[in-house]
């Protein structure tokens, strides 16, 4: 029998080069694997990624007002402020016409937007609209639109109103982002600080950071020894004690928050015990809830499992012989711990720390319920603008900034721990 060894190409039985055939098979496998993931990927894209993208677009979106006053804005852009103190007659005329013909709901929405740039716009336009409606009903056509409008309301002769309009003529605006850090525009389009009493966000951002850092720190302090104990006990004990960590993890957030209100309130369990022990007098009960203390205590307890679990899984695999070896070589237990054990737990500490920090920074339910007035974090303001003021631009901008902060930490987490290393329970 003759054996043919081709030195150039290996062929399959079909006569196709083996390399090509293998490539084809691999591509088929790739497509198959991808097809399995595709439904979920599509689902997440439509139900989750697109909404987030929509929110990001909304944070810079200023198109609505441009559909209400398109001609006015066009003419407004031609106004030379150096030359004329007030816009030319044609701006007044187009505004007059667009107010007369515009849909009421659309104008109403635009007014809300205009008021973000300068308060007073809403009432000014509302009054003017009413007068214009009266005039058109009577069939009156003004000789000079400028004078008629100024006659209706002298604010139309106030250039500062017109200056503020220049913030609205673009279809995109960064104003919500500036608002989200307590800045606004002055009449010459310069970025300035908000009025003293309207400065709330910078302070809230810092408070959110501060609370998150504190909570992370407390979780680390409380979680480290517990994780160490769990990792070093015999399995039958540690499994039992693990329930103490996993039970809060599985229990509804609202239940845990309610439980903390019950514990911390003035007539609550902790105050009751302290009074009974005689540590506090009956009217000297501590105020521990509906303030920042309450937020810190409740959030620490709620997020503690997220610190303990990653720490535990790292400590579990540190060989016990390391500490013994260090002590054998003459290190005191404290030094051995500091030089040998602690450095090996850094991956666990960073994983747990980042996880807790990232979760804390976006927390909303617990601070809202136990935080009271001064415990509110940035999440509460996002909810407030979403549900109450309907200032969705600002809501979206606050959300986008928070998201950006999150993504930085998410990226860090991925670098240090790896997304696919997340474990549950």
């Amino acid at each position: 029998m003759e054996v043919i060894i081709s030195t150039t190409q290996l062929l399959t039985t079909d006569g196709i080069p083996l390399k090509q055939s293998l490539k084809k098979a691999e591509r088929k496998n790739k497509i198959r694997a991808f097809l399995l993931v595709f439904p979920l990927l599509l689902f997440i894209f439509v139900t989750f990624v697109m909404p987030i993208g929509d929110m990001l677009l909304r944070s810079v979106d200023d198109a609505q007002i441009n559909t209400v006053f398109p001609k006015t804005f066009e003419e407004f852009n031609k106004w030379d402020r150096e030359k004329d103190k007030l816009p030319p007659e044609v701006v007044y005329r187009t505004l007059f016409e667009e107010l007369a013909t515009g849909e009421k709901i659309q104008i109403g929405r635009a007014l809300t937007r205009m008021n973000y740039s300068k308060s007073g716009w809403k009432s000014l336009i509302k009054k003017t609209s009413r007068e214009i409606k009266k005039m058109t009903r009577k069939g009156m056509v003004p000789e000079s639109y400028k004078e008629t409008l100024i006659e209706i309301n002298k604010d139309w002769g106030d250039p500062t109103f017109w200056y503020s309009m220049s913030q609205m003529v673009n279809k995109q605006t960064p104003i919500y982002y500036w608002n989200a850090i307590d800045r606004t525009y002055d009449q010459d389009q310069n970025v300035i600080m908000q009025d003293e009493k309207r400065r709330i966000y910078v302070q809230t951002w810092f408070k959110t950071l501060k609370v998150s850092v504190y909570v992370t720190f407390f979780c680390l302090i409380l979680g480290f020894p517990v994780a160490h104990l769990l990792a070093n006990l015999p399995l039958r004990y540690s499994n039992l004690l693990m329930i103490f960590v996993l039970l809060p993890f599985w229990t509804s957030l609202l239940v845990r928050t309610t439980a903390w209100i019950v514990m911390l309130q003035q007539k609550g369990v902790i105050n009751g015990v302290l009074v009974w022990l005689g540590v506090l007098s009956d009217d000297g009960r501590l105020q521990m809830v509906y303030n920042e203390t309450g937020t810190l205590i409740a959030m620490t307890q709620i997020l503690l499992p997220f610190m303990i679990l990653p720490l535990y899984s790292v400590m579990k695999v540190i060989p016990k012989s390391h500490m013994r070896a260090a002590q054998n070589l003459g290190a005191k237990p404290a030094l051995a711990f500091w030089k040998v054990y602690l450095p090996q737990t850094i991956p666990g500490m960073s994983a747990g720390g980042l996880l807790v920090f990232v979760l804390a920074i976006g927390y909303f339910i617990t601070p809202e319920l136990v935080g009271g007035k001064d415990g509110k974090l940035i999440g509460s303001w996002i909810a407030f603008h979403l549900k109450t003021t309907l200032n969705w631009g600002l809501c979206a901008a606050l959300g986008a900034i928070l998201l950006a902060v999150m993504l930085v930490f998410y990226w860090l987490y991925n670098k240090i721990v790896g997304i696919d290393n997340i474990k549950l329970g």
Partner: protein
Amino acid sequence: MALPSYASPVQKTYYYLYLFFCGVVFFFLVAPLIAIVPISFSVSPFMVFTDGMLAWPPDPEAWSFRWYRNMIGDCSADVVSSTVPCSNKWMIGTVNSFFIGIIATVIATALGTLAALGLSRPHMPFKGLIMAVLISPMIVPLIITAAGMFFFYARINLVYTFTGVILAHVALATPFVVITVTATLVGFDMNMVKAAQSLGARPVKTFFRVIMPLILPGIISGALFAFITSFDEVVIVMFMASLDQLTIPKQMWAGIRQEISPVILCMATCLVALSIFLLTTVELLRRRSERLRGIKPR
């Protein structure tokens, strides 16, 4: 971890301090959850331990099922109190929560398991990136997700509908399924799939007869995670659900906000019981799964 026999008194002190500290932390973790249980059986309309409850010998007058009866919508004369409203809202909420939770779980489990199977294949392209996208609903703060979904679903008329809430919950729950099932598939012997296929089984049959029985514990754990995610979810529900989609968390939120009443604690006690049940199930499943895959407990 016991103390060695040669430990010095200082070391002993540190060791007992350390144990004491751990004990305090364990207490801190579970005490609030335990404290609410007795209060839910109180007669008083306030969320406190009354004197009667603390009295010794126990005063049967101080204890009752009053608020549990209120919770299930029994508004008889001995149940109602001037400060605590009585309605069947809790029961409506329970039905809705289970309805939304179960449908969301089924969809999330199906999609998540498929994706996990794909992700575990060695040929998966862009694995890291896809995983990051799939996990992101779990990482992005809920309030941002809620805001984004509210804007977007409002455009397509899905806010204040069951469909909208369920879709949102599925998106939030799938990462848990993906993570749990992927973890189960680690160490899964792919030769078994090859064996099944070489014996003539088609892919669907291979999945149901070979793969699924082996990874079932993981799938069930993932489903339970998905269920509890949907069942406990309050932020999305707060913005995207109307009164028609009242769920337990939404009703609890309203309850804590407006009328602090022991009825909330009754529901909370039930939820703690539910979480103990789920926790035990998942833990048993995890051990079973490790046994099936031949991984020895560490």
